[in-house]
């Protein structure tokens, strides 16, 4: 925005100068203020990103000499069955959790969006698992997923659904189902907060006129609320899709990617390749593919947001 302003005033010359080198806001002070933040992202994000391009073209080991191997690492990554399977598994996992997170988050937002008695308390409560964090709730789930003793099995036995001896964490599909439930429960609170804030920004008059028109609750949601908060909906979907696609912690703690490599996610397969197999070149090539993919998803969704505005 300021670029536009300075370009617009450029022909006059004098106003621009006064604007950039003002007495109260000298240019050098501004630069000094933003410099630490810029330094952090340059050193710890952009430098490694550039280094990654170089490393991915070599057979980089943790120690010892290395040589240039061209695109071999990328070919290796793309043809590696474990990596391929981990991409597929992560996509399936992301596809399973995204819808329920949005629906549950939306429902919770509907419950707490009005300032009623107790709504502040409910907001706190629904957001609590997210605040506590995936790491901690995964450890809690680790205890409760144990056969015979864990709460998951006890509850299912009370309900008469199973006999309570299910070993959730040593079976791929069962572990995946459990992790999906855990994540949906754990992160819907964030979607709730984002959607709730957007819903509170919808002007009251719109609802009043909808009511005068005799719209039912569902018609109002579908025709008024959802179109008016679509930016927030898109944003929360971006956040949850990227978060799911980069999933690691909950899998590492609950299944370690097993049995075999059945529940190995993309990030976990890169981690293994780098720090267990010590093939940093190949791992970096995989990382770059992941950067490309996530950047693409983010850019696409930013573009979609801008387009409709």
């Amino acid at each position, binding site marked *: 925005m*300021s670029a536009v302003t*300075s370009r617009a005033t450029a022909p006059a010359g004098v106003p621009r100068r006064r604007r950039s080198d003002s007495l109260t806001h000298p*240019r050098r*002070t*501004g*630069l*000094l*203020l*933003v410099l*630490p933040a810029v330094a*952090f*992202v340059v050193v*710890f*994000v952009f430098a*490694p990103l550039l*280094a990654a391009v170089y*490393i991915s073209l070599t057979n*980089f080991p943790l120690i010892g000499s290395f040589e240039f191997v061209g695109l071999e690492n990328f070919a290796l990554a793309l043809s590696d069955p474990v990596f391929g399977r981990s991409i597929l598994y992560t996509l399936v996992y992301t596809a399973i959790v995204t819808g329920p997170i949005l629906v549950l988050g939306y429902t*919770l937002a509907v419950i*707490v*969006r*009005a300032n009623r008695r*107790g709504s502040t308390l*409910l*907001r706190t409560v*629904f*957001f609590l*698992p997210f605040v*506590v*964090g995936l*790491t*901690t709730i995964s*450890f*809690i789930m680790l*205890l*409760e997923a*144990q056969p*015979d003793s864990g709460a998951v099995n006890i509850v299912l036995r009370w309900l008469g659904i199973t006999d309570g001896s299910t070993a959730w964490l040593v079976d791929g599909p069962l572990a995946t189902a459990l992790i999906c439930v855990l994540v949906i*429960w754990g992160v819907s609170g964030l979607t709730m*907060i*984002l959607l*709730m*804030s957007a819903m509170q920004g919808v002007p009251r008059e719109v*609802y*009043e006129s909808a*009511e005068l028109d005799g719209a039912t609750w569902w018609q109002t949601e579908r025709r008024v609320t959802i179109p008016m908060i679509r930016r927030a909906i898109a*944003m929360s979907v971006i*956040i949850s899709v990227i978060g799911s696609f*980069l999933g690691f912690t909950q899998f590492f*703690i609950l299944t*370690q990617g097993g049995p075999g490599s059945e529940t190995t996610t993309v*990030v976990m397969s890169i*981690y293994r390749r*780098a*720090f267990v197999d010590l093939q940093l070149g190949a791992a*970096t090539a995989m990382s770059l593919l*992941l*950067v490309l993919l*996530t*950047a693409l998803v983010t850019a696409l969704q930013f573009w979609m947001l801008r387009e409709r505005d």
Partner: protein
Amino acid sequence: MVAAATTRKPAAPGRAAASARASVDRSTRETRTKYLLYVTGGTLAALVFVVPLAFALVRSVQPGEVIVSAPEASTFFDWTSENFRMLAAQSELGRSVINSIIVSVCTAVLTAVVATLAGYGFAKFRFRLLPWLFGLVLLTMMVPFQAILTPLYLEMNALRLTDSLLGLVLFYTTVNLPFCVFVMRNAFEAVPDELEAAALVDGAGIVRLLTSVLRPLITPGFATAALYAFLASWTEFLGALTFLTDQDLYTLPVSMVNLQQGAYGDINFGLIAAGAVVAMIPCVILYVALQRFYVAGLASGSIKG
């Protein structure tokens, strides 16, 4: 909500009086049904979210043998502080709690301070390079750290920042910066130019300005940034697992995973439960204390970002 809003508002001007009464009737009836739905739905949902966390508290005071055996009324309520005492006595776990506190508190402070400076610069200063630098910081939101883990590890290793709590703090600060810079820029943009200019003309330095005149105005943003960085680093897992190999430097989650996966057949679930509760408590307390800042800040940062 709609109905409640209508009834609370004074009668809308210019609307037929005859239909007004009918509409009020309908609204109150609708309000009652909706309120009932709100109460039952809200209570049930609240139970679903609270009970698992509350149950974790119960687990943490049960001995390990009770946790891993089928529940029996006779032993289920034999509560003890044994797990927490063991956690404090076991040098590795006790040490890891302290490491986690050091790392997350330092990260929170450093992130909030750097983000405040940058937020001020990006919001109130104007020169040609600035939008580009802002774009650069925002661009990093598109590069998740999970995706640059290997080159980052090599770089940190070369800078001697692996196996170092300082290295972990610098790493976490970078990860949390883009979002926090955004929050702080929003905070400074809400500050009236006149107020800031008046103080500067009066000869206040930048530091004076930030810590006295502007402080009350930017405190909510600062609290949001600090809490965001604290929560993100307190139990962060992948980075800590990658950058730390020295057991003395482990943070709580890494040390718990070590406990879980290192000693085969001899997992003490009591310790895991206690560790989970220790990890949970500061998050809950800080969040409840700061939530009136946090919720608004989180939403504004994410939607506009």
